[in-house]
């Protein structure tokens, strides 16, 4: 089969590096739009249940530790800051700064998962995990249980995204550490940066909806 015209050009099949970058980011934004709708369905469910069972949600929300959510939000926002910087350093080919900032971002992400893990443990101890072990005294326990169903589903899914992000940071960071030429294609870092910031955005909405319902 004859080689396609232009196949020897460095950015083939793209016109140039700018075209390639724009295409990579465009693809990522399309993926993120599907992610918005994926999480969006659950946000819609939350809104409907809270509208129908406001009182039960207030009672359930009183069992949340707002300061843990506050701490986690601060941790995650800081990691968004270090990730945005890391992406810029990757584009400049500054490997040492990239590795340092990836390290900090990774540690912040891991700290987030640790705090969240402690909360899950606390919910188990207090019998607030939906299912046969669920114990709750309130005006409408089954509606309050729905609050925790949504809490575990939405934060769990968010945690899964965080876990994937941490694995990708490990992969990209390790690869750049072993082989500096990995930085010659910086679009991959920008795509990872978009993913990480999106996970931040989801949390920014989860925090008021699950931790600030009825803080004490």
């Amino acid at each position, binding site marked *: 089969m004859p080689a396609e015209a232009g196949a020897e050009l460095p950015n083939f099949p793209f016109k140039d590096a700018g075209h390639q970058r*724009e295409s990579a*980011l*465009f693809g990522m*934004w*399309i993926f*993120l*739009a*599907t*992610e*918005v*709708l994926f999480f*969006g*369905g659950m*946000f*819609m469910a939350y*809104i*409907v249940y*809270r*509208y*129908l069972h*406001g*009182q039960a*949600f*207030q009672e359930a929300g009183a069992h949340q530790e*707002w300061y843990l959510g*506050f701490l986690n*939000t*601060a941790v995650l*926002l*800081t990691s*968004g*800051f270090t*990730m*945005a*910087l890391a992406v*810029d*350093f990757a*584009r*400049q080919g500054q490997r040492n700064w990239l590795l340092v900032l990836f390290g900090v971002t990774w540690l912040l992400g891991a700290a987030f998962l640790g705090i969240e893990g402690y909360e899950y443990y606390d919910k188990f101890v207090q019998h607030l995990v939906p299912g046969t072990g669920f114990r709750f005294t309130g005006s409408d326990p089954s509606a309050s249980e729905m609050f925790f169903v949504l809490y575990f589903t939405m934060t769990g899914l968010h945690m899964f995204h965080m876990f994937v992000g941490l694995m990708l940071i490990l992969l990209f960071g390790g690869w750049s550490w072993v082989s500096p030429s990995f930085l010659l294609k910086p679009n991959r870092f*920008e795509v990872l*940066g*978009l993913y990480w*910031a*999106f996970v*931040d*955005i989801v949390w*920014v*909405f989860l*925090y*008021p*909806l699950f931790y*600030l*319902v009825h*803080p004490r």
Partner: protein
Amino acid sequence: MKINLSRYLRVLLSLFVLLALTTALAFLPLGAWNWLVELPVAFAMAGLILLFFMKVWSSEPLLGLTSAVGFTWLCLLILLVSLDYISRAWPE
């Protein structure tokens, strides 16, 4: 490309201020309606992350438009479903 550290720092600082604000709003005695004042703050925080950490501010218009697509559809979903629940009586 120059790295604009001071801009990132200002964005992070604004995010912390908004985080403190939304937390303070949660303690206002508004009954069950605190979330309606907290959500606009969350939207402002998401906007800051979108514009600066995700660099939509300095992106090509195509990327900016694409970034708005998912959120626009979600707003339609929430608006129409909410209207349905608010305006119609559902059997208990």
